């Protein structure tokens, strides 16, 4: 019997500050995963917490996590330095349905710290660019400094149409101002053959769905990465349940109509 609670030790190859409270960690390990899956990263003495993998699924030498300092574990991770070690369990969850996306236009929407799984998904699309239709990323943040992985975004622009928006612009800001939902009128897609992939704050994903659905993207084709307290990763501890689903096993990626009627 395998002890699935036993984590693996991995070395931190690189740490980069992405904004005031967000760091990117590059971990030296081959992780075979599907964009949208998450890992439980931990530190002895502090515990474990879930993070979506942000790097390309084709990158076999390392993988990246983007960590916002919001809780005990993430704060402890922020105190680490290059060369130090961290523990990993996973990957867990289902990931985005990549085959289902093939041949379709894809609208990706992200806000706040929801960019990691979307970033990984974009890397996958870019590697298989010809297999997909029009690709959009609608990405919102509080201010321009909170737009994460800017260098990646610049790199992606050749293959993906990227629309950035902020609540509070700063001088020289070239993107949009306002909500992510305001960006939808800027996109051109065939809604009957399009899918949406979202990860971000609940109110944002709900608002985006309210616009995409009337456009003709059915809830079955709207995929959202849900947030709950994924604690054990094995569907045992009960912390991440919503309705009849375990976010750690059945999710974190759900069809919108799988979760929108959940009572919790």
């Amino acid at each position: 019997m395998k002890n699935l609670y036993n984590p693996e030790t991995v070395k931190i190859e690189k740490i980069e500050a992405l904004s005031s409270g967000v760091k990117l960690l590059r971990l030296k390990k081959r992780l075979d995963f599907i964009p949208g899956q998450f890992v439980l990263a931990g530190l002895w003495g502090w515990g474990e917490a879930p993070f979506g993998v942000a790097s390309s699924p084709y990158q076999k030498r390392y993988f990246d996590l983007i960590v916002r300092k919001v809780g005990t574990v993430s704060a402890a991770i922020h105190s680490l330095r290059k060369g130090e070690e961290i523990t990993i369990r996973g990957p867990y969850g289902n990931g985005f349905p990549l085959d289902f996306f093939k041949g379709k236009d894809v609208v990706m929407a992200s806000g706040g710290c929801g960019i990691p799984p979307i970033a990984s998904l974009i890397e996958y699309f870019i590697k298989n660019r010809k297999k997909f239709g029009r690709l959009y990323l609608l990405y919102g943040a509080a201010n321009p400094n909170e737009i994460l992985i800017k260098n990646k975004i610049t790199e992606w622009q050749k293959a993906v149409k990227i629309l950035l928006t902020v609540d509070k612009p700063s001088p020289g800001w070239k993107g949009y101002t306002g909500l992510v939902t305001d960006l939808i009128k800027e996109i051109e897609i065939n809604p009957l053959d399009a899918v949406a992939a979202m990860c971000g704050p609940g109110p944002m994903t709900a608002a985006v769905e309210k616009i995409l659905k009337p456009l003709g993207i059915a809830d079955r084709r709207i995929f959202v990465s849900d947030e709950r307290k994924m604690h054990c990763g094995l569907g045992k501890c009960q912390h991440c349940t919503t309705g009849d689903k375990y976010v750690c096993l059945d999710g974190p990626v759900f069809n919108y109509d799988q979760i929108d009627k959940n009572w919790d």
Partner: protein
Amino acid sequence: MTIVLEKSDISKLLEELSKKYSVVHYQKDKIALSAKSHFFAPREKLFSFLFQSKKLSVLPESKRKLLLFGLDQIDLEALDQLDEIMTKPKEDYFYLRQRKNSIVVGLSESSIIVPVTVGDLVLEKINGNQYRANPLTKTGIGLINNKFFKKEKNPKIFNYPEEKNGLRELLKDSELLAKAVYHSWLRKHPIWEKLEKTCLGCGICTYVCPICHCFSVEDEIELNGSECSRCRSWDACTLNNFAKVAGGKNYRPNQKYRYFNWFYHKFVRAYKEYGKSQCVGCGRCQKYCPARIDIEKVLLEIIKDYQNEKSL
């Protein structure tokens, strides 16, 4: 031929068995906690990590096998359910390791109607002085291979019906329970508002429940900072921070949601996942709730209103 054990020999048998096993005589009326605590401890160390040498070790299991004696049919049924939960879809290493390192002997004061599918040996009352031995495993057969168990040709066999239990009657129709509980929430049944005010959010119902299995894992550091232990403790979905994520959002922000979740998991989600309620009607939560919430009464009220509404 029936293999019987004299009631008066039970303590001598246990004494004999304790030479080989670490024997626990579980007596329901003497302890609030269910037998689950022997396989899934209220707090247990899982790993130990030494900071200096970076040595990680899985806490070893006890060298002596546990022999848990005295579970009645209801508690055996609960154990069977917990075994299934801890096995599917992924295996819980620590629970199953402890289960494999143990022997379970049931003691039933009522006649066995539905075959028991868990444990190694079940002793079934057949008359005022004797129990019939029903071994279920090789280990169980091994246990009756001693002077305390005797073969008898024609022992007196009486029928001892199960004690009347309203909750267990309700559980026979787990489909109705699933429908009625969910329906009550959709129709904003006033009982949930009422329970929000009654429930103290103490978690006792889940701790005494033989099937509830919510847990949290946290690290414990030695005062001198040399070592840390990763510990698993019981948690309860009725406690206020159970569904709270880093950053502060609480997905079940008030007690109504948390209390309903307890019911939802037991009667609705469990029914969809396993085809039965995660309740065996043992009555512990009713007995030990400090706010005297009686889940049987709650279910009866919900079902009554559900059926009234359906018949309109």
